[in-house]
């Protein structure tokens, strides 16, 4: 049976900020005739077209894949990172989850290490620097058949994969009352440490990545769990316990120089 497509109108309070130096303020807009099948970003596209027709500056927001896998998108909707739906990025959030006539407050991720560049876009290069500090495997891991030739227990492989699904969106930092990036950091460390290929740089990786995390000015974990609730990929809070364990273990197991230089 064919059903009528529901159209809705919304009031949006959107954070507008011209540049990192600008003070920034909320601006209120109305969007009419939004399809319930539109994604949240498509709804913003519709608003932007409207703004362009009115010769106003469109709202800047990050996006790329629009299928929940790249980690580019993300902002707060009514105080919730990526909006009200769990395990969903804003690009995969559909307007059918909202009511006609609703007012939505849209703000960028906020945290000291995440500078607002423009409107809803923030600088997340701190994450890149954490990865550069150790989120890689630099030994030769061979090609695909070599990977398949190494048996890995199913629960280990699953755990590695669960952690590997982190897309680096920053929702964990944005929701954390301490602006801690521990969930992101833990996902990256656990992913590699769970696999045989990750063993060679095991100690130096975690020691460098935690140091970079702290240098960037992210806060400490208080196991509050806002990150876990906000994470679109379902990274678990318990991942941080493994990170803590890894850093402690590294203090005893690290052999200076030898491993990183391959001697």
């Amino acid at each position, binding site marked *: 049976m064919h059903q009528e497509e529901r159209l809705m109108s919304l009031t949006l309070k959107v954070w507008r900020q011209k540049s990192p130096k600008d003070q*920034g303020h*909320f601006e209120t807009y109305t969007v009419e005739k939004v399809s319930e099948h539109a994604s949240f970003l498509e709804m913003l596209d519709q608003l932007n077209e409207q703004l362009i027709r009115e010769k106003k500056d469109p709202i800047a927001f990050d996006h790329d894949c629009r299928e929940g896998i790249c980690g580019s998108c993300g902002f*707060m909707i*009514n*105080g*919730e*990172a990526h909006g*009200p739906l*769990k395990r969903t990025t804003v690009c995969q959030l559909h307007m059918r989850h909202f009511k006609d006539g609703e007012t939505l*407050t849209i*703000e960028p991720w*906020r*945290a*000291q*290490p995440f500078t607002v560049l423009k409107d809803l876009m923030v600088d997340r290069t701190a994450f890149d620097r954490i990865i550069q*500090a150790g989120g890689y495997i630099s030994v030769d891991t061979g090609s695909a058949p070599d990977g398949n030739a190494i048996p890995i227990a199913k629960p280990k492989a699953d*755990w590695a994969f669960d952690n590997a699904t982190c897309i680096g969106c920053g929702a964990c930092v944005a*929701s954390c*009352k*301490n*602006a*801690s990036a*521990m969930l992101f950091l833990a996902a990256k460390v656990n992913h590699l440490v769970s696999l045989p290929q990750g063993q060679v740089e095991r100690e*130096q990786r*975690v*020691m*460098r990545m*935690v*140091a*970079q*995390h*702290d*240098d960037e*000015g*992210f*806060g*400490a*974990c*208080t*196991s*509050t*769990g*806002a990150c876990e*609730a*906000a994470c679109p990929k379902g990274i*678990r*809070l*318990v991942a*941080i*316990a*493994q*990170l*803590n*364990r*890894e*850093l*402690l273990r*590294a*203090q005893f197991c*690290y052999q200076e120089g030898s491993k990183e230089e391959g001697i």
Partner: protein
Amino acid sequence: MMVYGLRSYLSSTVGKKFVMGVTGLIWAGFVFLHMLGNLLIFAGPEVYNSYAHQLTSSGLIYVAEFILLGALLTHVILAIQLTLSNRAARGSQPYACTARGSKSVLLSSRTMMFHGSMLLVFLITHLMGFKFGNYYETTVNGVVMRDLHRLVVEVFSQPLAVLWYLVALVLLGVHLSHGVGSIFQSLGLKTLSNEALIKSLSWTYAIVVTLGFLSQPIYVFLMMR
């Protein structure tokens, strides 16, 4: 830059939380034993006083007090340091909205500094009231000792004192309902398979400790006044 070596580890966010966990664990352990000891009020004045006398007349009490005081100071100093640096990390621009729905979190976990500070105030009033409170003497089986039982009855005959203990002990329970689980997280002992168990342990511990402690003032106030 690497977090390697004791100094570097202890000044990292992860290392500081490890110390928070250890010091919290020391106090959580003490609090539990203290609660069990208090239950001796139900065994009568002689048993209660003799137990307290035995505890305080051994030299080990000074070692225990030293460890507890050191742990508390460390816990409080780190709590202040972490709270300040966590606030700085949050930045100066607050959000206009806070999460209400499925992405909101337990209030207890957001307010550790508040109930923690209340516990510090409570601890001072508690020590002034009992440890450094009125000194009465009694003789049990020919041994002269402090009559703590009399002091307990005296204090908990006052409705305001009972009320203050009620508030403080509920806050202790709230602090520990989050704190005990957090110990396992900070010390890296939590895993996928024991996560649910630790959550129940944390809540059970908090409820048992709070009710166990509360039984004393309530029993005294209702039955012995």
